[in-house]
């Protein structure tokens, strides 16, 4: 028993002392063309994507536009009102417009985008956007309170971003 114990403890001791060859975090590299990332794009009332493999997701982060590929470094990004493009496979892409939210890249090659409101780009009406923008610019040029103008500014930013996105349709 004592002999057995010493063998196992020395074997265990040797194993512990040996440096692991693969670091648990893994080496960072570029995404291969075939690599995909699991996307979950959810609104409060609907899941547009639920853990679906996609090649690339282009988001409008508050710090700038970015494209997320497979094995992206973990990140949490607040999103502006803007275009969200999902490239499901080479050649097919779907465009959405979201009002804002957060994009979270998880360490296990998964991307979760939580948006407050959003829809496919073809569900938007350029005439409605144009008339909404005109209404809001009237408020901005008028003599309301600072809070009303701040609210109009937020809406104007959304409409201008939407016009830009619709222009790229």
């Amino acid at each position, binding site marked *: 028993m004592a002999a057995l114990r010493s063998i196992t403890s020395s074997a265990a001791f040797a194993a512990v002392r040996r440096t692991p060859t693969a670091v648990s975090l893994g080496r960072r590299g570029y995404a291969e063309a075939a690599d995909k990332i699991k996307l979950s794009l959810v609104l*409060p*009332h609907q899941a547009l994507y639920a853990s679906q493999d996609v090649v690339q997701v282009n988001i409008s982060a*508050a710090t700038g536009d970015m494209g997320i590929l497979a094995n992206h470094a973990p990140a949490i990004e*607040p999103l*502006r*009102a803007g275009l969200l493009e999902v490239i499901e496979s080479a050649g097919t892409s779907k465009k959405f*417009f*979201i*009002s*804002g*939210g957060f994009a979270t890249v998880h360490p296990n090659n998964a991307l979760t985008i939580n948006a*407050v*409101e*959003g*829809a496919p780009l073809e*569900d*938007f*009406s350029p005439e*409605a*956007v144009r008339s*909404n923008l005109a209404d809001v610019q009237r408020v901005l040029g008028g003599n309301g309170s*600072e*809070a009303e103008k*701040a*609210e109009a*500014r*937020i*809406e104007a930013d*959304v*409409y201008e971003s*939407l016009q830009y996105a619709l222009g790229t349709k």
Partner: protein
Amino acid sequence: MSGAIWRQHFTFNKYSQIAARAVRQSLVEAERLKAEKRGDTGLKYQKWENGQGGNHIPFNQPKEDA
């Protein structure tokens, strides 16, 4: 976005709801009607005394449909 003017007047939640409302108002007619319902919020409360609930009292009357 972090240095924006609205931070002097609104919380992030309010900013979020304003942007969502703007997006909803820009949809095509059929989608917009479905989406507008998501923007409505209601609140009602009920006072309890001695284990008995009182009447439900709406905090704000919902908008009348035109």
